């Protein structure tokens, strides 16, 4: 894809992400907020696709859109009743939220300003440079340098603990 086309797609995605993120935190209805969050996550997957990170884009889709968001929606459907609206925030909360947002913006701007932006003239990003699935798999299950067997196994133990905890809570006898 040409560089200009990529930049146009990037700006469309960025605009959708910004608008939906703001809507996600300002919406009074829980389920609407969750839906806008879903749009944000989908557009983030689009950004990964733009960077030729196909694997990460698909993981983003399947884990967030297919897993976590459905969990959120289920939890909202089971706990809140129709017409529930979140109460408006008090002043202290608003100030804290503004401070947090400002701090995040400052960190991002400083980080982008301090580093050279490679996007646009980096040969490994533009073009059809896909990382093969096999290489990712070997990196995840390898025990050499820059390979992640230990964290992979630690995460699976964590998930196992979660499953056992869930069963314990669900089967109170």
């Amino acid at each position, binding site marked *: 894809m*040409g560089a200009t086309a990529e930049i146009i797609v990037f700006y469309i995605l960025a605009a959708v992400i910004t608008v939906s993120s703001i809507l996600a935190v300002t919406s009074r209805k829980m389920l609407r907020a969750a839906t806008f969050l879903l749009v944000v996550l989908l557009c983030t997957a689009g950004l990964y696709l733009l960077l030729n990170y*196909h694997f990460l884009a*698909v993981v983003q889709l399947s884990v967030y*859109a*297919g897993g976590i968001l459905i969990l959120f929606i289920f939890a909202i*459907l089971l706990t809140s009743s129709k017409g529930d609206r979140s109460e408006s925030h008090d002043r202290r909360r608003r100030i804290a939220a503004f401070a947090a947002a400002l701090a995040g913006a400052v960190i991002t701007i400083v980080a982008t300003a301090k580093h050279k932006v490679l996007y646009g003239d980096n040969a490994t990003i533009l073009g059809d440079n*896909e*990382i093969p699935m096999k290489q990712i798999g070997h990196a995840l299950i390898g025990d050499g340098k820059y390979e992640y067997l230990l964290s992979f196994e630690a995460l699976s133990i964590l998930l196992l603990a979660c499953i056992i905890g869930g069963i314990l809570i669900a089967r109170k006898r």
Partner: protein
Amino acid sequence: MWSFSQLTDWIDRSLHSVMGDGWALTVEFILIGVAILVAYAVLALFLIYAERKICAFFQCRIGPNRVGKWGIFQSVADMIKILLKELIRIDNSDKFLFRAAAFFVIIGSICTFGAIPFAKGLHAIDFNVGVFYLTAVSSLGVVGILLAGWSSNSKYTMIGAMRSGAQLISYEISAGLSLMTIVILSGTMQLSEIVEQQGQAWFIFKGGLPAVIAFITYLIAGHAETNRGPFDQPEAESELTAGYHTEYSGIQFGFFYLAEYLNAFIIAAIATTMFLGGWQPLHIPGWEGFNRIMDYIPSVIWFFGKTCFCIFLAFWVRWSFPRLRIDQLLSFEWKILMPICLINLILMSVYVIL
């Protein structure tokens, strides 16, 4: 064997000779999008007609026979009718989510549809992680169904959506595990490569017993994912009027209806691609003359023939078995189907190593 890439290359070259690179690319994107949408709509019309006819024969009726010869234009007439219908506004419903839900369902379905290799050289989205992409994108439909059930503000739709969510999430696991079995055999997730590897023998023959078991479990799990057949509790008409899309009318209902039929097609097409060789003709090693005759049949006919066979199996099951209860359905998945899939995965690994 004639390849569609000759046609697509010709379009590509002639576009580039007329206009600049950027515009040619834009026109190509639009062309592909229009082609996919048209194919989606036409296939849906064909499938609705086929389902009505097959259902009629199973019930010893004739089925649609008034519009055109043998009623072949019946679904076209139905389409015009559904386009002209009123969109009824529901009081006290969340209007925004109510409208958005239908789009989530159909977008998930179209994204999956675009990644299917229809014929030699006719393949729109070909990722390195193709199989993973298929399972990931198809899960978007669940969100749409849950939102539709909640936002219509009705008990029936809510119960339907909850059942559907539980069912889809459960059966996705079995469907994914069955596809993984074939990924172990082929060593790649790219759909074009998977089809390419089946040139000599389809995976269902090459993979031995584990591949056959995976094919059967995939058909069952996929059938359950489309909310059809004995697994249609989410829209059980005797209990829930129409389940999660009770309150929808006009073309918004049409979206759900379209997505349901196309999901049946997509499941059959994925089964064809992964197990029955995609567009590859039937080759038997050693029978040179036979193989050459099979090569003369175009790849599109092979693909659609095999897919129609899988769809016919699904229709056959749908009109032959009574509906299960929701608890039977879920315990079938978690206690029977998923353990079989996991054991089958190990079997396939042993088969590949040996």
